[in-house]
């Protein structure tokens, strides 16, 4: 039959197209992985595609002995730990009162106070000046405090809290509990799935953010891993280097070592990726359209 022929052709083309798209998304990562395990000579000759040529682990040995790399990784881990716990605590502390629609006095005022910061910002320089004036330059707190209140997550959590039955809380009030008990004994445990979702996203965000490290940290030794990679490994301003500098740069940064550092830095993300993916659809739906 004609239409079933057409459908079959479409199915084949469709599978092919999606397959190509999927490969396009993973290929560059695999290419980088292959480079990180290849010998410098094979890379220079342009022989490496998807499989390591002249297999060697020297790039990884080189990287793991680099003190700056390990130090920067440590700073990034600290940042994730501090930043993530602070973000989640503040999300709960802000979303809970704001979800008490008919109870909380000045609720509308509070909500606008927070939401307005999503709509308008003072810009890069005034933000930098406040961090500088507080004496936070070169401190880990400069990476954690300015973004400590994640407004978007607060909105997600607020909507989730509003969906929980009020009777749970009212019963606890009968037994003499107050709002603090209600938040930490009833609402927080019930919101674990949402908390986990936003937490994972926060981890990825803190791990990946590099620009604040670049402007708030004056020296290499304070850089988080992402900033370190941006300045030392990727550094696009090769055009501004002299040939001599360029040679030096390539000598301490062979391409396979570069790839190894890049690849090591995405290992943590790969590790939590399966969990992230599980929550993806769920999280997006929570923030969606309300009737």
């Amino acid at each position: 039959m004609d239409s079933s022929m057409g459908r079959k052709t479409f199915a084949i083309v469709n599978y092919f197209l999606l397959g190509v798209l999927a490969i396009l998304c993973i290929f560059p990562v695999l290419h980088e992985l292959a480079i990180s395990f290849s010998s410098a000579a094979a890379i220079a000759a342009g022989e490496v595609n998807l499989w390591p040529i002249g297999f060697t682990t020297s790039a990884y040995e080189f990287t793991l002995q680099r003190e700056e790399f390990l130090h920067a990784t440590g700073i990034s881990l600290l940042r994730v730990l501090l930043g993530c716990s602070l973000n989640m605590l503040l999300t709960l502390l802000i979303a809970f009162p704001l979800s008490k629609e008919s109870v909380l006095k000045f609720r509308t005022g509070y909500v606008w106070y927070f939401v307005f910061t999503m709509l308008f910002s003072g810009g890069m320089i005034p933000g930098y000046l406040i961090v500088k004036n507080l004496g936070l330059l070169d401190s880990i707190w400069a990476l954690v405090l300015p973004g400590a209140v994640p407004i978007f997550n607060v909105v997600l959590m607020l909507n989730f809290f509003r969906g929980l039955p009020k009777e749970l809380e009212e019963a606890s009030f009968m037994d003499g509990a107050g709002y603090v008990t209600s938040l930490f004994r009833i609402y927080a445990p019930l919101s674990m799935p949402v908390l986990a979702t936003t937490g994972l996203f926060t981890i990825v965000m803190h791990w990946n953010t590099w620009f604040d490290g670049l402007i708030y940290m004056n020296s290499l030794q304070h850089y988080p891993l992402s900033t370190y990679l941006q300045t030392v490994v990727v550094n696009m301003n090769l055009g501004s280097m002299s040939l001599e500098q360029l040679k030096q740069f390539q000598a301490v940064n062979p391409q396979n070592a570069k790839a190894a550092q890049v690849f090591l830095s995405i290992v943590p993300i790969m590790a939590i990726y399966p969990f992230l993916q599980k929550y993806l659809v769920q999280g997006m739906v929570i923030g969606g359209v309300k009737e």
Partner: protein
Amino acid sequence: MKRINQMPLHLMLLPGVILVFIFAYIPMSGAIIAFKHFVPSKGIWGSDWVGFENFRYVFELPGTTQVIWNTIFIAGMKIVAGLVVPIVVTLLLNEVRKTFFKRTVQTLVYLPHFLSWVILSSILIDILSPSGGIVNKLIVALGGHPIYFLGSNTWFPFTLVVSDVWKEFGYGTIVYLAAITAINPALYEAAKVDGASRWRQIWHITLPGMLPVIVLMGVLSLGNVLNAGFEQVFILYSPGVYESGDILDTLVYRIGFIDTQYDVSTAVGLFKSGVSFVLICVSYWLAARFANYRIF
């Protein structure tokens, strides 16, 4: 209902209120240096007022109009491509009957969203290199001439758009896939009984089912007309492509941190924040009006 003491609720809000005040509202007030001649030793409040002098200075610079145009051009292309590609991929994914294949594709296409531009740019620089990058090897093998994607003013904006779509299209399909799952399966059954082909089912059921979300995403993206993607451009551009790739945010960075003209830089930033603020307000108003969307 029993009255409970409200005080703890206000105390819970206090740390957040203070932090937001320090790191969002003080900088907003600090933006007044856009109207001052900023001298570090005199501080933000002590510096002298100059009215719109900083704005006049920036807009009289020869390159500024070009920068605004670049910003709108790059952001505009990203908005359109960022809407169309995920919708098409969603429709294709929705036609896949083999769950395993669908899951695998989804897992792979979401991945680039979670990698930072630092990582992706280092990979991009490798594969797009005019000397030995895999993309150019392919072009040469097909009989073309190597293209310097990151160094040519003709190609740079498109390289930005394509690589941005590559990073985000998979993630973009999530909202649309969620919208499709909400469509009543009975509609498809009824259509089949009436003899509708797959194509007609997509056209008359799937697309209309997705329409509210498509409208919503389109309207909300209006707020991004001046957001051409600072991190991506900052990492990938170089002086050779300032002509086609310099955008408002990178201009703010260079005037502020390279030339240390804090007042002028803030003026450019404030111009951008102001216009964006109006656009975002309009987009939320439209979203509330036509797509029933409320952020809180």
